[in-house]
């Protein structure tokens, strides 16, 4: 599990990183796994903790809906992170 240094007042998220992004969740099987974050926490805080580069080009879903990087996360949220690459147009 990816954890911050200070475990006081944390939430646990169920994260899924799609495609090659899964390497930023090294212990998560098939890019899926729990991540602890100190509160208050936003989507962007999560991306910083995971160390995912080019955060502005990612699409993030929280509980199945697209979420802005400023969105506040709560315990148990399911977070999906996808790189915004499209086929055919480069």
């Amino acid at each position, binding site marked *: 599990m990816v954890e911050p240094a200070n475990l006081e007042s944390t939430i646990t998220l169920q994260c899924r990183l*799609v*495609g*090659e992004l899964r390497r930023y969740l090294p212990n998560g099987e*098939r890019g899926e796994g729990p991540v602890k974050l100190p509160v208050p926490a936003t989507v962007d805080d999560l991306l910083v903790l995971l160390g995912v580069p080019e955060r502005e080009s*990612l*699409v*993030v*879903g929280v509980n*199945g*809906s*697209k979420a802005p990087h400023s969105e506040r996360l709560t315990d148990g949220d399911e977070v*999906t992170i*996808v*790189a*915004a*690459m*499209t*086929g*055919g*147009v*480069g």
Partner: protein
Amino acid sequence: MTERYGYWNKVLHVDLTAGTTSIEEPGDEFYRMYGGGRAMSAHYLLKYVPAGADALGPDNVFVFAPGVITGAAVPGAGRHSVGAKSPLSGGIAESEAGGFWGAELKRAGWDGIVVHGVSEKPVYLWINNDEVELRDASHLWGKITGDVEDQIREELGDARIRIAQCGPAGENLVRFACVMNDGKEAAGRGGMGAVLGSKKLKAVAVRGTTPVVVADKSVLTSTAKWVSSTLDENHSNFSHYGTGVAMEGKNLDGGTPSRNFKLGQFDEIRKIDAVAVGENHRIQMDACFACSVRCKKVVQIEMSEADAGVTKKGIPISFDPQGRYRVDPRYGGPEYESLASLGGNLNVDDLVAICKANEMCNYLGLDSISTGSTIAWAMEAYEKGLITSEDTDGQPLRFEHGDDVVAWLTKIAYREGYGDVLAEGSQRVAEKIGMGSEDFLTTVKGVEMGMHDPRHMPNMRQTYLLAPTGGDHGSPTNDRNGLRNAVGICSFLAYDDEQTLEILKAVTGWDVTPEEMVTIAHRGHTLARLFNTRHGFTRADDVLPKRFQDDLPMHEGLSLEFQNEMVQEYYAFQGWDSEGVPTSEGLAALGIAEDFVSLTT
């Protein structure tokens, strides 16, 4: 003799009516002006195809156009383009493909092929370096693409021959038939396979053994090292999954083509994206000429577990749990466009059926985008009762049913039953049956749109509105991709403009400036526009289909006022008049007034 790098100053002309060939030496200025690709195609099409020519008649001309970079030893240099008047749109068609064929043509000593006339009987063109021969193809007529490759290589005795060809769909003049090369690469858009079929030119087989001479090899070597050593930073998803890995992101963003572009999301998207292909059915990734990115999926599916086993490299081979389909790896695997057009937009979550449909498009020579979108339109018409099971001889056309999709592909390619109607493309069928079915077309200039919804993707709005090739996502209206198309370099490579300039200089030895690169792109845009103007297109054709005025749940529809503003801005940017017609002053600024100014009036 002038030293030449990147091109040979040799274009092959083939007169199928007379059964003769000739060589043109266009001169150094020609290459510096056009580069290749669409710009070169448009030059020849404007020169040889008269106004009003039947796209499937003897007056159409077919151009194979690599670029000056094609075939040089640098990643991304495996691209070539084909061009002709489109039997689908009636305007210019131009479509790009990867693989090895274009590089092989350059290695054979040719910068392009211009095919004129119509042959009386089926033939294929055999180019063995500088030896050129038209050979009988009666025995190949009717065969699927893989069998044609096998037979040509066997009869010519060389397994390294590269082949571009039309499949049975092209022979049967399906208006959205494609040109396949290297078994799994498609110049998909605009019905170019039908043009080859109409000319009875089954295939062009090429063997070339002379490397393309470049001005500065060291730059290309260091560029190639940069690509291969930075794969994780720049091409990681392409390299590991290929196109279609971001489908879930597009879905979260409400931009998935779903139910004939009606919904914007498809709940089962995770079952059909490139990750699902990779985890379930892919046996390897494959490459185009000189490219270390290796973004091409190869899929293999067997009919049963007993047939499956493992590949020679020990990779497990999947099987169809329903025992319906085998998918042959020689036809590659589905790119994003095929996953979306044969899957998501039809609300099909049956990945085995999607892979089968993709394989069939490749062996029948069907453009997977226009095929899928014509079926999507027909499914909506069927759902609304505008097409009935009586029309279709009982073969259903249902969203969510992958088996229906597979069943229709053969009917379309061989024009069987109602497949003969659908083979005309969705716009012609809608015009025929009426009853409001035009309202849910997804065509621009008669060409079905690629799988990128312009309501979701701002950069696609200009492309679809103004691409001279119609609803073609890959048809570059911007400078970056317009330039890459002309010189023959893949738009997937993460080169910035400076690197592209370096590559162009290193290959050609030209002291080319960024401004000159942009001008090459503009020439391509303007000549293609000029071709369309000559063939009856007007400003009224620069409009999106009605469906795209409707809102998606997460994105606003695109009003006619909005579209008109965008069109006017682009005309001004390209130096065309307010009706979108290139001007004599504009042609003069591009240095092409002498050849084409008479067409502006």
